């Protein structure tokens, strides 16, 4: 696995853990927050997507090394797209 692929895999796994923790424990420091991850570490926790994204860009300018998640959100919830492609 390349270094970048390894970083991206660690980012994804950390995001999964953050979301799982926040969904299990409403008192988690991540509950309801947007978490920004870079290089396998949480580097930003913010109340909204805009703030999280702007701060994450400053901390790690390479977007390929970044990942984010809205903790507590059920990402398995289906968003219906009615239009035909």
């Amino acid at each position, binding site marked *: 696995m390349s270094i970048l692929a390894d970083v*991206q895999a660690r980012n994804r796994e950390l*995001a999964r853990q953050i979301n799982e923790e926040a969904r299990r424990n409403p008192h988690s420091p991540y509950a309801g927050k947007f978490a920004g991850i870079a290089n396998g570490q949480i580097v930003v926790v913010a109340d909204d997507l805009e703030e999280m994204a702007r701060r994450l860009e400053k901390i790690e300018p390479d977007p390929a090394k*970044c*990942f984010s998640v809205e903790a507590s959100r059920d990402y398995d919830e289906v968003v219906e797209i009615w*239009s035909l*492609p």
Partner: protein
Amino acid sequence: MPRVQWPLMCGRPAVQVMLTLAQGGQPLTRDLLADTGAGSRRAVVDLLLDEHDCLLCGGSAHQPITLGGAYIGSFPTYVVRVQLPTLGFDRRLRVVTVPHVPAGFDGVACFGFLNRFTYGNFGDPHQFGLEV
């Protein structure tokens, strides 16, 4: 109030957003189908785009989002800077990437995005517009 309007495309409502190329910072305009049937007020999706556009414009990966209906499954999602200069709109939005977009368009502006504005034809049946 600032308003921007675009001619209908293929007889359908369209909005033109401006993205920013990661290399060089040049603007990249994208014509999107304005579709109030895509997502809901509660949904977390603003736009549907080709993944290539998200990567070209420096999108950073976000937790994948699950779609149903016209697209089924979990799709890669990015946080991408989206601008509507006429309206002074400049935000990072959640963009879900899909394998194909509606013919004649570069993507879809979902209800979550349109509902950030006042939208409609503003009395001109040949145009669609957004107003803040």
